[in-house]
């Protein structure tokens, strides 16, 4: 049983649950819900689609009509921010401090110095140094109500946006329906149970290059899963394969990092931060995650 896509999303019955699918944030989005009938599923679909689109439009770096654009083109002036943006910026600041500077939403400009299409790259050291002079969260002035970026600096919420959206959408559904929900935004996952001890969701982990073969499985009723690293995006420098995660402190990709790190935590956002942090620890990724006492899976 399925209903035709309307407003960009599709709803279909998948046996024990209903599946809502659409594309957003450059990823396939799938939301699985336990609910009683098609009209309930359709109502939930409408809610989550609107919320996902809202977040995408508001925080996408590629638009010219949102708060991120205003901040990135403020030319050194202070930009007042609303409550939601304020919370995200505050969170970004806390992550910056917690990661000793590795997690930095002002480091997006480094993309001008690197391409990760699998080809051989000779890094332009002068360009990298020039870009590094224009990044650094510590240079930003943020008091909770307004943010001021020095000229030439940019923020990029792409590293948090998808995970934040997954958590928000799951919370939205958990509030309006008593159903168990699984949100999967291209591998960034948030599950919420109905709180009555019902069975959890089974999530298969695929190995890149061997899709549809699950190399591992996790079962969660409540929590978030996020993966950092993408084995399709890499470059080769001096004969060494490097992933696409850049360390703002050096301006270069992290050497010796796993191909990917998947972390399970309370929320998708927390899992995403820990996964990114793991990658940024390069060869120490597993040791770092061991110290955090989370369930993880690193692929090398």
């Amino acid at each position: 049983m399925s209903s035709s896509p309307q407003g960009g999303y599709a709803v279909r019955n998948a046996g024990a649950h209903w599946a809502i699918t659409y594309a957003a944030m450059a990823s396939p989005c799938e939301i699985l819900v336990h609910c009683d009938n098609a009209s309930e599923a359709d109502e939930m679909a409408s809610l989550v689609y609107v919320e996902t689109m809202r977040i995408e439009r508001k925080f996408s770096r590629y638009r010219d009509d949102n708060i991120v654009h205003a901040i990135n083109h403020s030319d050194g002036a202070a930009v007042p921010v609303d409550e939601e943006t304020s919370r995200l910026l505050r969170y970004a600041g806390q992550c910056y401090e917690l990661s000793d500077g590795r997690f930095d939403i002002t480091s997006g400009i480094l993309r001008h110095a690197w391409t990760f299409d699998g080809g051989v790259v000779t890094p332009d050291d002068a360009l990298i140094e020039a870009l590094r002079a224009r990044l650094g969260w510590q240079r930003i002035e943020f008091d909770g109500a307004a943010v001021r970026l020095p000229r030439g600096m940019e923020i990029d919420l792409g590293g948090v946006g998808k995970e934040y959206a997954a958590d928000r959408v799951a919370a939205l559904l958990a509030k309006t329906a008593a159903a168990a929900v699984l949100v999967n935004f291209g591998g960034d996952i948030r599950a919420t149970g109905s709180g009555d001890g019902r069975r959890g969701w089974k999530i298969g982990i695929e190995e890149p290059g061997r899709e549809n073969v699950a190399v591992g499985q996790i079962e969660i009723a409540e929590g978030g899963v996020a993966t950092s690293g993408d084995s399709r995006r890499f470059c080769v420098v001096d004969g060494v394969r490097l992933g696409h995660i850049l360390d703002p402190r050096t301006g270069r990709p992290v050497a010796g990092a796993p191909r990917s790190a998947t972390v399970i935590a309370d929320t998708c956002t927390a899992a995403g931060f820990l996964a990114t942090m793991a990658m940024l620890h390069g060869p120490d990724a597993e040791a770092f995650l061991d110290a955090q006492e989370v369930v993880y899976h690193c692929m090398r």
Partner: protein
Amino acid sequence: MQLGAHRPIRTAVTAFTATLLGSGTVAASGSGKIDSSLLIYSESGRVKVAEGVLDLSRNLSERRSVGLRLTLDALTGASPNGATPSNHIQTFTGPSGGSSYVVNPGKTPLDDTFSDQRVALDGSLRESLNRITFLTVGGHLSWEHDYSSFGVNSGITREFDRRNTTLGVSAAYTHDIVRPIGGAPDPLTSMPPPSTTGEGEDDGGEAGPGEGKDVFDVVAGVNQILGRNTIARLDYSLSRSSGYLNDPYKILSVVQDQNSAAPGEPSDYVYERRPDTRNKQALFGELRRYIAGSTLDLSYRYFWDDWGITSHTADFFLRLPVRGDHALEPHFRWYRQSEADFYNAYLVGGQAAPNYASADTRLAAFDAVTYGLKYSLPVDAGSRLSVSAEYYKQLGERGPPDAFGVLRQYNLFPGLDVFMVRIGFSHEL
């Protein structure tokens, strides 16, 4: 990148993300709510009331919300007028002076000329000054045939300690205008005899000139989260009223003394008199706990005022979930009050008249219990329907220990037996 020990940061990450995500509650908590209820209240043999409330609240922005409440009620039926029963027929003058009503021997005198409608409007505006401080301002208006009221109120709350503790204080000022039908009677003067021609001296049924009353209220309180499943609160409230505090329709029987020919039989009726100020205070504590899917709420209020009344109120609410997001909620309330200093079931002729006197049983000593059961269920997304039935009973002493003569024969506390049914409907916008 150091080898060796890594700092555990998971707790911090969880805390930061919880703050970011609003820790379980969606930041934009809907755009508003409609809450409505219809109450049918019926005292056996006496007053019947139908009351409807419509409550609208709307979030105007992330910082501001407004609320509007409309209340309509219609009241009809008979209420004790304060006089004592007699072995003979009693005749009382109606409020307008022109009408009168008759009470049979042995019956508690009831004034059945009551019939009134009331409209009340309450508005409020709530503003978030910063993420942990909230300011509320509000107003109130109400009209009845013989009573109108307007008021303003304001309050401020602030959260502390990771939002676990909330302190709040609020104040209200209300001005009431009482316009008793036939004018406010002279207190402790005799009720005029029923007019034989059927015409009254006054405007016959119209509300007379108004008497004023001012009420000033202050409430200070603290809410405290005690644990993952428990929240508690403690409130102190103070209320000062001044002005016309009498009930213009209530009287006292002046009975013949013990040595007369008909001891305890009424010889006269006088209007009551209460002081023109009243200071009330109350201390209220509440505990709400979530226990394996059910919710328990226990509360207790201790009340005292300068009229000599003290009271205890204990309330018990339990919410039991039923399959499919339905809920069954039993409720029990126990109440005990002492009598006002100037409460007198009757006055004795020949004795010096007291400064203040009232036979209004609402100022007497009595116990009361309420038993209730409510059932609620979801209808549509975001809507909820509920039905409840309650029984309320007041029990008081038959009469004062020094009752004599005819007064010993009768139960001087009319008591109260009330059935109530409520239908409620709420919808999240």
